[in-house]
């Protein structure tokens, strides 16, 4: 299960997500020509506290589901990687639907910190041409999964 601070997510098997992404990784990352830029840079994911992690993962998954996956889907069909994509997207949806970041006042500053990290990521995304940004963001799912692994317990 995942434990992002107080947010617990059961019913998702992380190795299945890795398997799905590995099946797409080479195809997708080969399309990324902007090698000098990284969206999920260290300032976004490093030293994230447990409490902050639930806010951050919720924002990131929401962005991936609503923006990256949705707009990159034509390429997915073109590359014929629909099954693996479906596994990844539906498991991200399963995770997100179970995340309930606390909305209490005392955690306001923490959620703000997480939001600043997310804005760093989204800002970098918006700096790029949309096609390049979608390709890079999708290709960086392994960075996201590696970070999520820290909060996963067998």
């Amino acid at each position, binding site marked *: *299960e995942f434990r992002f601070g107080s947010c617990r997510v*059961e*019913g*998702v*098997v992380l190795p*299945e997500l890795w398997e*799905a992404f590995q099946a797409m990784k080479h195809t997708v990352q080969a399309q990324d020509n902007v090698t000098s830029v990284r969206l999920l840079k260290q300032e976004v994911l490093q030293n994230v506290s447990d409490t902050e992690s639930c806010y951050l993962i919720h924002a990131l998954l929401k962005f991936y*589901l*609503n923006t990256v*996956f*949705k707009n990159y*889907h034509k390429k997915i*069909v073109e590359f014929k990687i*629909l*099954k693996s994509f*479906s*596994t990844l*997207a*539906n*498991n*991200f*949806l*399963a995770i997100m*639907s179970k995340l309930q970041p606390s909305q209490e006042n005392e955690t306001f500053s923490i959620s703000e910190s997480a939001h600043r990290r997310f804005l760093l990521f989204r800002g970098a995304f918006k700096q790029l041409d949309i096609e390049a940004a979608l390709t890079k963001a999708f290709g960086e799912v392994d960075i996201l999964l590696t970070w999520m692994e820290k909060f996963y317990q067998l």
Partner: protein
Amino acid sequence: DTAAFLPAPQNLSVHSTNMKHLLTWSPVILPGETVYYFVEYQGEYESLYMSHIWIPSSWCSPTEGPECDVTDDITATVPYNLRVSATLGSQSSAWSTLKHPFNRNSTILTPPRMEVTKDGFHLVIEVEDLGPQFEFLVAYWRREPGAKEHIKEVRSGGSPVLLETMQPGVTYCVRAQTRVKAIRRYSAFSQVECVEVQGESLPL
């Protein structure tokens, strides 16, 4: 033309046991003809964000029999839509869609088959191998008043696991339960099996 109008398959349903999901439907029968079927699925993501997208099933695009193992297609614990179309030559029927989306967390989990044996003074259990998603919880105890129940987690089936070194003349009992983390559920316990090792007390 016998197939001017090819009826769509009816009575779609999913039978799921121990995370094996079988989609079945009533066959379309045309005397003297062989009808094939195409099965497609969409997860909750597709139905929410791109409902026009349907994905061909791994094993049944096409298939001849009125059933399809969709286990490899259902890869997240979210609701899935499933649909079937009949084809005959260049003719295709309309799609028939499963009335209620299927979620793998509704699978029926049966108690695991197990074999409890003695290897010398060792109490050994082997639980059936149900696949990588399955873990087992094994409970064992000495059959005597006030005996404490011991619990052991077995990560995978199909190989013998040592539970305890037994004392001669004491009966040991075992039962087991299936667990699937991907759906956060577990089965009922199996029947209890007991064994006893004869002989003198243990050598010093």
